[in-house]
């Protein structure tokens, strides 16, 4: 970098190595799909969907919940739960430090946020994964919060909606994180016996242990457009089968075609669609004869 470039404020400085304009943070954002530079305020207004091509960008869990839930009468649940480094796990960094860094960067305690509130008046509990917290990975805290949310729904007889966005199980918690898969699946089976609606919304990306447990077990599975959803990551598959993956592989549209999900819904219609689904599901009075166990 030459001396006069160093003098320039970083906002207008050119990145010498790539010779590309660095977009000043906070005002403009480039759509990763169509490359259009968009005014950030417009994107927020449009629920983080590209105003040009409709690409669904990743969205923070808290923003998601704030868009989805009615604005009054909502509260966060189990917010104090946080992870413990019980294995003293260390790779290039200690797990303890990774947790601390993620907490600092995201302002969240862990990768799942749970809120109780209403959508268009229907009482509901909603959980959303925060992908920027260690890739939305599921460890003890995510498993426990999901389980508590489900139990609360059973207790209050209200539906559960979960927005998944996760790379899978959290490796730093080893087998304990694998067992969160059976933990969450087991509580979903309890919900089914009590006819508590569970709607799973799979967003970009939903992979591995989260996809192979709670995310695929909705009464209704919904995906956002073009989300990456699958068990094994595309790179792992490519290395295993040694062939190029077909176009659109493991995207929402591919899953719909192969029968893994019920529907693809645009984020901007999500609240209305789920409201209508829940209204339909809860329309008929429950049968008197309780088939449920315990």
């Amino acid at each position, binding site marked *: 970098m030459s001396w006069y470039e160093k003098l320039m404020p970083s906002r207008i400085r050119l990145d010498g190595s790539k010779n590309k304009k660095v977009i000043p943070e906070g005002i403009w954002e480039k759509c990763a799909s169509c490359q259009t530079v968009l005014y950030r305020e417009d994107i927020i207004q449009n629920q983080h969907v590209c105003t040009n091509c409709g690409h669904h960008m990743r969205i923070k869990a808290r923003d998601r919940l704030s868009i989805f839930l009615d604005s009054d009468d909502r509260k966060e649940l189990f917010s104090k739960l946080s992870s413990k480094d019980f294995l003293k796990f260390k790779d290039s960094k200690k797990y303890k430090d990774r947790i601390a860094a993620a907490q600092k960067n995201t302002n969240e305690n862990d990768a799942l946020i749970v809120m109780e509130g209403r959508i268009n008046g229907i009482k509901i509990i909603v959980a959303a994964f925060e992908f920027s917290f260690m890739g939305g990975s599921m460890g003890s805290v995510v498993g426990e919060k999901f389980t508590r949310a489900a139990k609360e729904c059973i207790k209050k007889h209200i539906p559960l909606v979960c927005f998944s966005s996760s790379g899978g199980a959290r490796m730093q918690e*080893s087998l304990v994180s694998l*067992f969160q898969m059976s933990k969450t699946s*087991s509580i979903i089976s309890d919900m089914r016996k009590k006819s508590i609606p569970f709607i799973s919304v799979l967003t970009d990306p939903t992979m591995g242990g989260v996809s*192979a447990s709670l995310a695929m077990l909705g009464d209704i599975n919904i995906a956002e457009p073009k989300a990456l959803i699958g068990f094994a990551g595309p790179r792992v*598959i490519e290395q295993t089968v040694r062939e190029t993956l077909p176009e659109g592989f493991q995207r929402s549209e591919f899953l719909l075609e192969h029968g893994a999900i019920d529907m693809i819904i645009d984020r901007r219609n999500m609240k209305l669609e789920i409201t209508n689904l829940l209204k339909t599901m809860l329309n008929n009075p429950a049968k008197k004869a309780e088939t449920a166990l315990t």
Partner: protein
Amino acid sequence: MLKFEEPIKVLEDKIEELRNIGSDGQVNIVEEINVLQKKCNVLIKDIYSNLTPWQITQIARHPDRPYTMDYINSIFKNFHELHGDRAYADDNAVISGIAQFHDISVAVIGHQKGRGTNDKIKRNFGMAKPEGFRKSLRIMKLAERYNMPIITFIDTPGAYPGIDAEERGQSEAIANNLLEMSDLSVPILSYVIGEGGSGGALAIGVCDNLSMLEYSIYSVISPEGCASILWKSPEYAHLAAEAMCITADNLIKLRLIDEVISEPLGGAHRNASQVSKDIATSISKNLDIYFKMDSRTLINNRKDKLGSVGYYQE
């Protein structure tokens, strides 16, 4: 043969050589053989009592290690293999069927890795596709209808990461097994006999009693996979194996498993019949506990156990 087993092999070969000379009747070398045999035993004990988690991983994957079919043949009687998921195919990476254990009818399900190139390919190296998990669930449901306890043997590198597996819903197949198994009204006893690889292992491993052989591993991701992500290269698999605490002795300390079945000196492949006997003893003992429970208690206990896994603070 594994690298750290080489010194043992050298001694064993020498003993064998001496035996052959001895049988010619020319030299009396019985004493020499005894000395070497003792030396060999000490060496085996030495090597096997100081194994690193990575070495244990290699024993868990040992090509001579007994597989599910070996245990089925030695532990059960009248095994009838039942094939197919009734929807798409029969997955040879999973063996399932019904059999007799003493006087109790049981269902047996396990991953099968295959021996020799052709068999390995036929068994897909023990990596199940969705139809394998769906077949397993079908047999479990059948077992439930006829009040037959379920015994599962876990030995897989993981669920198959392939295009076809994804097309047919690998995630859903695993997830559905987890959900359904948590509610089965018959006892489920799971034995990790080699590699407990991730979701593919858990998909037949939701159970009332989880046992591991001494030199088996159970892990959320393979050490190589973990190393490539966190250490940026599979070369650091030995570090990942250590960090993830994937061996039986660690997992029982964490109370994630219920029982460790010790293996003979040198590993299960050195005395398979002894290991079969020990697994059979464990099955007897556990059926005595779980098959006597009424199904409500059984399910509630299982669910409490599944629900209580986790370390967190509030």
